[in-house]
């Protein structure tokens, strides 16, 4: 099993370097001049040139690429933002935890509420609760989260004066962003769980378990759910990786200074260090998320784990043969 993990980690390094080269090249060719963005529309051509020289943008493509790769992967220096004048690493250090916290808390809530909800609906299929829930799920998935966010602000801040409507600071600042961010996730999770569990309800081993005298609750949570988990875990794993990017809208509405807005501002301002670093970090997170999801699959379903282990064993046998 460790061989499998090691192999995946090595691939992740290759992936990161490829992503870095790719994003560097894309940003290089995208039209738009960071000097112009920084100096504004009043700058003359010489000023722009001088600024570009200062940023090192006048070197050839390969030289710039080489410097960038060296800095990023050997010195772990992500550069200094053109607009913020602070090292990107520092900004990450303060923003990444915020966005990740927001994203992951939403994810956890999605799972904690969504999965039991889906299981209950599956067990009471076609009852009035189930049908009501299906409509609610459709609504939950369709409501744009910024609209919901603004409605909540109008209610909780304006009318009831209970919660602050923007910024960060106390735990109260997190309540509405989390609710707005997790609603559609709860609905999606519940629906996925519901269909996955419905598939396992008719399975033979469930009847076996019942015939053994296992309590209904245990039949659901010890026998059915672990088998139904594969697609659910897949969905959660994918959202885990995109937790950073997914919160941009929430961050804008609530003026929540996180990675999402950082990246958006960086793109508009052609702030190369910011954009490159954000994309690289995003890619890394996605890769880690995929790895963890695959490991989770292996943990849940021993047949998949066997595949991972067997693959290594097969390779060994092939090598020896």
């Amino acid at each position, binding site marked *: 099993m460790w061989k499998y993990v090691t192999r995946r980690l090595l691939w992740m390094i290759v992936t990161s370097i490829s992503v870095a080269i790719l994003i560097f090249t894309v940003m290089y060719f995208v039209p738009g001049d960071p000097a112009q963005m920084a100096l504004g529309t009043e700058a003359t051509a010489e000023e722009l040139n001088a600024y570009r020289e200062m940023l090192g943008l006048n070197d050839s493509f390969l030289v710039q690429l080489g410097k960038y790769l060296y800095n990023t992967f050997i010195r772990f220096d992500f550069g200094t933002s053109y607009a913020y004048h602070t090292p990107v690493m520092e900004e990450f250090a303060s923003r990444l935890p915020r966005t990740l916290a927001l994203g992951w808390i939403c994810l956890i809530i999605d799972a904690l509420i969504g999965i039991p909800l889906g299981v209950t609906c599956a067990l009471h299929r076609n009852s009035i609760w189930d049908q009501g829930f299906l409509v609610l799920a459709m609504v939950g998935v369709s409501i744009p989260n910024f609209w919901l966010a603004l409605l909540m602000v109008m209610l909780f801040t304006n009318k009831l004066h209970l919660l602050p409507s923007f910024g960060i600071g106390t735990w109260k600042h997190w309540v509405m962003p989390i609710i707005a961010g997790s609603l559609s996730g709860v609905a999606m999770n519940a629906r996925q769980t519901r269909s996955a569990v419905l598939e396992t309800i008719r399975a033979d081993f469930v*009847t*076996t378990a*019942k015939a*053994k*005298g296992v309590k209904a609750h245990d039949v659901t949570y010890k026998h059915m759910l672990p*088998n139904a988990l594969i697609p659910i875990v897949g969905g959660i794993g994918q959202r885990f990786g995109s937790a950073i990017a997914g919160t941009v809208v929430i961050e804008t509405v609530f003026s929540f200074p996180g990675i999402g807005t950082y990246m958006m501002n960086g793109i508009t301002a052609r702030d190369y260090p910011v954009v490159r670093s954000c994309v690289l970090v995003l890619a890394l997170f996605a890769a880690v998320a995929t790895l963890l999801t695959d490991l989770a699959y292996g943990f849940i379903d021993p047949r998949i784990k066997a595949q991972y282990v067997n693959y290594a064993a097969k390779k060994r046998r092939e090598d020896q043969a």
Partner: protein
Amino acid sequence: MEQNENFLQVRDLVVEYTSGGQVVHAVNGVSLSLDRGQTLGLVGETGAGKTTIAKAILDILPNPPAKVRSGEILVDGQDILKLSEHEKLKIRGNKIAMIFQDPMTALNPVMSVGEQITEAVLLHNDFTRTQAEARTVEMLEMVGIPGQRYVEFPHQFSGGMKQRVVIAMALACDPELLLADEPTTALDVTIQAQVLEMINDLKTKLNTSMILITHDLGVVAETCDNVAVIYAGKIVEFGTKRDLFKAPAHPYTLGLFDSLPKMDDDSKELHPIPGLPPDPTNLPRGCSFHPRCPRATEACSREGEIPMIELSPGHFCRCIRTGGNN
């Protein structure tokens, strides 16, 4: 616990399924009884209602569609259908256990086989974990599986071995009644023989009663004491193995025996029973078999229940065209 009194008694069991607005009459007034240590074979075509009877005894029918309309199921004098869920849980797996048809899907793929057996053991006994595991290993060994394979998962076993695990799981708590639903249908013939032999041995050792559901007359011949033939949710013939094989009476039973291919038969064709089993949502009037019966008369299709006629002591037949009316 007198030996004479029937250990299991089913009286006038009626089970219906509601599906898409229509009512499926799965079991239509079945009565049977079983003594301790005896094996009853339930024979019939697919869809005759055999599995439903077995699941009804354990009360694990899927609840929204299926419903037990009426009847009694007495085990050791207690009516199972009238017990609370809590008490039923105590009986399932413990007093009455079931072996299912398809071993490939009967086991939970994400739990180790040992764990699944231990779960049953822990549910019904006051053992510690270690004791339960020891018992599991004991059962595995009893069915011929090495104890080290406790931690392995179902996908690592072949079909026959899986079925053995299922049997071990069913017998782990020393049940008094074993319901075996076509336990060898999904296995090939050589394995079939092994499994049957094992079931027989265990049964004798533990003095377990058994209801063996099958559509294979050969299996019946090997293992059963009594046989009930089921057609369209009703028992159409009942008797000892000897009765049935020596003197089958009901036209359906005769048809079943006829359709078995014989070694010394020169003809190139089989002799199946003509026609198809009836639509369970719309059973024929009178005798359910009369549309396919070579001996049917007008009286057979008359409205009303055809009564069971005792042809000889213990040998019953639900047909008005037998027993002296040949």
